[in-house]
């Protein structure tokens, strides 16, 4: 006699089927921008960029001796940076001025050739002060290296909280605190 499946098993099976269908649909519907086109990639040097400053783009895995058009896309508009020709290994390096009409904000750098497209996100900041502030905030994770005492004290407090929490959470239920004798 074939045993009946438990309701929990049926529910779990239905859940897994639904998860697989939706996961597959989500992957199939993923935008093309999320995936590399033909393996071509670009990297941006010396981010973040400052308004009115220079931009440096390095590309690789393009076709050899191919023309690549470089553009800057943002809500302020579409800006043509220039065109370059890849070398015998499909690489290029571009350095040029940021257009003065590309106002501060977030942009997408697009490199397009006949057979390949690559993109990278970047941002243009208003001033060097803003760039320094952003650099400072990004670096905050370990900035307390300048104050090892404070870091050590905080780490000790966190450790004490963790140990106390562990003791309270995992002490046996029979271990009860009583104020009555």
């Amino acid at each position, binding site marked *: 006699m074939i045993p009946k499946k438990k309701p929990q098993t049926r529910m779990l099976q239905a859940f897994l089927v639904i998860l697989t269908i939706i996961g597959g649909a989500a992957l199939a519907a993923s935008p093309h921008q999320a995936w590399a086109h033909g393996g071509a990639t670009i990297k941006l040097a010396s981010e973040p960029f400052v308004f009115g400053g220079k931009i440096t783009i390095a590309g690789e895995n393009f076709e050899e001796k191919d023309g690549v058009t470089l553009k800057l896309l943002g809500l302020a508009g579409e800006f043509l940076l220039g065109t370059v020709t890849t070398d015998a290994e499909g690489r290029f390096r571009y350095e040029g001025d940021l257009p003065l009409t590309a106002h501060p904000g977030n942009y997408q750098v697009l490199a397009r050739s006949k057979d390949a497209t690559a993109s990278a996100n970047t941002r243009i900041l208003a001033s060097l002060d803003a760039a320094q502030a952003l650099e400072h905030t990004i670096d905050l994770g370990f900035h307390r290296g300048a104050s090892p005492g404070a870091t050590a004290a905080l*780490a000790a407090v966190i450790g004490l909280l963790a140990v106390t*929490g562990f003791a309270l959470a995992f002490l046996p239920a029979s271990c009860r605190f009583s104020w009555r004798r």
Partner: protein
Amino acid sequence: MLLPPRGFHIVAGWLHQRLGLSAFTYHVPVYANSLPYLLGGITLVGILVIGASGIYLAQFYHPDPAEAYASSLFIVQEAPLGDFVRGVHFWASNLVMGTLFLHVLRVFVGKAFRPPREALWLVGLGLLVLMLGLFFTGTILKWDQEAFEALEHNEAMGRLLGGLGTWFTGEFSTAVSLLMRVYVAHVAILPVLLLFLVAGHLLLIRIHGMAPPPGREAEVQAALETAGRGQAAPTVSHFGVHLRRLLGFGLLATALAGLLALVLAPPLGPAPTPGIEVTKPSWVFVWLYPFENWWGLQSLLWIPTGLILGLAAVPFAYSIAARWPRSQWFLLVAWATILVAIIALGFYGWLTTPMEHLMGEP
């Protein structure tokens, strides 16, 4: 049993008499001490941590559009332990949203909304909406590019509602900036409402008790009555044990928030640039981003509204479906599908490149 030092019981007894601590010496089922049943309490401990860190941050934050970003920078660069406290506030907020969603999921899967706990479910839903509001308003206060665009979306939602939505726009009060009003909402209005609803939520739990797993109502009730008569009941525990484990896990979550604050600085983007739309919302709201791409701004209003109304109807839908047991499985699978879709849409929204939605809006 652990006994305190000699003499301590005199102080404790004094407090016990005057504060009515005997109200907390009641029985709870043993299953209430497991982690899934402690998620709500862990969320509450997290809210207290967020509140305490928020009070410190408020000493240095200036809710004026011309100064807000500079004050955010001051907190992370100059204020004593400002970056750490901001980190605790940020990571605790994210952890609390996570435990809150897991708590809602546990209550839903365990069908703890069954009669007579419908009001408890609705009050909890109100708490969920308030916490989402606090998370959203908190995102705005840092006043970077992401915050600015979030506020623009807030105004656009307000305009969609016409006269009803004027409160959410700058037109409601020209004497005070919208950022200041968002700040007042974040530090006063929403926390006060949260306090009332939390009190109501806890009171209803005390009245109705922790909902037993489906099918075990009679067994749990019998065990509690046995314990109440002073007889041994192995499936019954003491509230003190529940409270101890709740505090323990809450402290562990706090320690995790502290550790994350120590090693991972929360993001602070560049100063806002009006007129562009280049950021995406945080993980709590990013699942709505694809809807905004497909159907525009109004989807941000109607999709969450539909979801909240659907959740509010859950206890009553299950009461009706109780007459047809198979239909309950259908409801459960439908909600599971919605949950999986939200998670999948969240990843999809995370992967898509930022798109323009607000341009062209009045």
